[in-house]
């Protein structure tokens, strides 16, 4: 009997749409979804400006463009006049998931254009999605019922475009994405005042650089105004601000004191606006990384200590600019730094030095706390654009003494009684400790 021949067979490996959607939408917050959609609008503006060839005034380069975001427990919509999606883009890559292998990278396009931002936001939010877009030349509509789409044959990942017009259309230039049949948790969240406020604050912070160039963003009919990072600057206190360039990329690094560091770094204490401190990495006005305190921006690397509440008050901005966006140190998601980027590595050296200067200072200043705080708060607050260039970070000079922390617990009633005896205006356990220690030193310890 002849031996059985070994053969090759095939095993199925194609993804299921359901699984894909679940993975895609997993770790993104609704607030970040909105920011992703706004990013697409800005990409649209840049495309349009480039095609028009106009060299606009850089300070108002986004002037004339607007984005309107609306949401409530039943619907979400984002509408813009930022150029629209061309039919070619819509058919070949706008609605694919991720950057297609065979698309020739247009050197003028930012990395990650038509990446996953739009699809991720759409699928995250709801089950009925409508897209209407026009470039003035082409226009189309997309009506997506997610459950029907999922029932398409496994190999069929296409979307149907309807009302397609080529070469001339009277549909207004721009894009509108509307989502209904919201997932219950999404609809609930959209209905909370907390989400409305926190998502607006995120736009104010992450879009500050873009908003200052004239783009109008409205959230539920209210215009959003950006909050620029601020630093304290005076004779004694000033941030580091340097500019470096390499090839066609320029980077500007600003780092220093934005607010007085805390004395109380205990876990229960909430430092005002704590979540806004750390490093911001900005690429062509887009905030890629916000208030970062991880090793991505150097914290805990080499001689720079890991972030600690003691460092609240530190603000740093590393702003990379280039006419060739693919040279910038961002990943395709545009929400991550690409740490292998050579210029970023060089910038990181400067950033780490700045961080170390600041963290050393936060230790030193404890010897002359009152003097330090006085000089820090006397320094006027200035927006980043008004800060002067300086190779050195200036911080108040304080005496160098080695300090030791004393920490102990005593019954609250006793502490209160001592505070009264010391005639303290309010019961500060820390003040009680310091004053009783000083009392003893003065009377019992030989100088």
């Amino acid at each position: 009997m002849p031996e059985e021949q070994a053969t090759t067979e095939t095993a199925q490996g194609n993804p299921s749409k359901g699984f894909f959607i679940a993975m895609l939408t997993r770790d993104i917050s609704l607030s970040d979804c909105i920011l992703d959609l706004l990013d697409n609008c800005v990409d649209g503006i840049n495309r349009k400006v480039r095609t028009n060839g106009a060299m606009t005034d850089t300070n108002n380069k986004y002037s004339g463009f607007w984005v309107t975001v609306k949401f409530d427990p039943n619907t979400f919509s984002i509408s813009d006049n930022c150029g629209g999606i061309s039919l070619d883009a819509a058919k070949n890559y706008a609605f694919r998931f991720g950057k297609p292998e065979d698309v020739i990278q247009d050197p003028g396009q930012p990395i990650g254009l038509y990446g996953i931002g739009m699809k991720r936001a759409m699928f995250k939010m709801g089950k009925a999605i409508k897209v209407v877009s026009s470039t003035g030349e082409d226009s189309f509509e997309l009506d997506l019922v997610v459950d029907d789409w999922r029932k398409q044959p496994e190999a069929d990942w296409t979307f149907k475009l309807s009302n397609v017009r080529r070469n001339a259309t009277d549909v207004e230039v721009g894009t509108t994405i509307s989502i209904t049949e919201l997932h219950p948790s999404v609809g609930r969240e959209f209905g909370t005042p907390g989400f409305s406020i926190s998502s607006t604050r995120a736009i104010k912070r992450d879009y500050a650089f873009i908003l200052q160039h004239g783009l109008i963003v409205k959230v539920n009919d209210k215009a959003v105004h950006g909050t620029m990072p601020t630093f304290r600057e005076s004779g004694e206190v000033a941030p580091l601000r340097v500019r470096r360039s390499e090839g066609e990329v320029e980077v500007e690094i600003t780092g220093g004191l934005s607010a007085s560091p805390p004395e109380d770094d205990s876990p229960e204490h909430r430092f005002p606006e704590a979540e806004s401190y750390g490093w911001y990495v900005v690429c062509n006005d887009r905030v890629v990384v916000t208030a970062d305190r991880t090793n991505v921006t150097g914290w805990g690397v080499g001689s720079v200590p890991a972030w600690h509440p003691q460092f609240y008050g530190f603000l740093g901005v590393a702003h990379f600019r280039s006419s060739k966006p693919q040279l910038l140190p961002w990943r395709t998601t545009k929400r991550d730094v690409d740490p292998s980027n050579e210029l970023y590595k060089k910038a990181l050296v400067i950033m780490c030095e700045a961080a170390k200067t600041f963290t050393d200072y936060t230790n030193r200043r404890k010897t002359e706390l009152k003097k330090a705080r006085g000089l820090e708060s006397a320094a006027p607050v200035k927006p980043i654009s008004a800060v002067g260039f300086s190779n050195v970070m200036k911080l108040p000079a304080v005496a160098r003494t080695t300090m030791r922390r004393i920490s102990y617990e005593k019954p609250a009633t006793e502490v209160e009684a001592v505070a009264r005896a010391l005639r303290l205006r309010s019961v500060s356990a820390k003040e009680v400790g310091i004053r009783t220690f000083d009392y003893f030193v003065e009377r019992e310890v030989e100088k």
Partner: protein
Amino acid sequence: MREPSFEKIDYTLRPNKNVQRKLVVEMLSRVGRSPRFKLANYRYVGLGSIWFADFILMHRHLGITDLDSIEREATRERRMEFNRPFSCVTVWIGPTSDVIPTLDWNKPTVVWLDYDDPLRKYMFDDFEAVLRRLHSGDVLIATVNANVDQIRDVKEEEVPLDPDTALRQVCGDENVPIDVAPDLNPKRFPFVVGKIFANALVTTTARSHTDLQFVPLLNITYKDTTRMVTCGGMVVDDSDRGELKASGVEDLEYFAGRGQFEISVPHLTHKERLEFNKLLPCAAPPDPSKLPFELKPKEIESYWKFYLQYPVYQELQH
């Protein structure tokens, strides 16, 4: 212009707080018109202090027979116990954060956190602790000092904070409306406080329960010696949302949906009160010229509305 001293009343006689209390009870009573919300079967949780004024009203007018009072001052335990107005009132000693988790929340409940303090972080923690434990049909009300000075001249370890930052520091970034800075003055601050509380109550409820929403019913401001704001509402599922509406509570003039409502009854002498009452009731607030003594139009309107709730103080001959 400073108030003349005769208008600064002895703080134990607070007619505006008194009227406010009665309006709260009236609102609960209106809700109770719906057969779904049997107020007499509810339990009441409050911060009674030694006066228990709200407790007395809840028992007397709504028939509530299960009442819990929380008192944080441990040194007042005996005084609290001594002053319990009825056998159905239980006193619990400790901060709200400690006591709330220990109470039984399996009964329909009205909670009124009548705080004396200005805005504090622990209040928002309390909201979360309570809202997590409430069921459809339960009511949560909170009263707070809304004097704008509390966020002026705030120092974080001797570094002055700007009022907007101070407010967000206490109430949380998510609860404070954007661009609130222009409203941080004596006239507008009560509106801001009302908005912050409403934001916190609605957002916290939506995040703690998948099937419940917070419906604001009360947004009242008043001042005797200090400006105060009272906010409150009911936690409901879809079915109870309809029942609540059907009770007619939204017809009340001070229903929160109409905006913040101000109570500003004047501090009247006994003689002034009797004279004013001679004109009441009448279709519209009387013209100031009809009264033989000076009152502001706002005060006339408030008294015209609430003359029946206005407290009558008499010294007891004991």
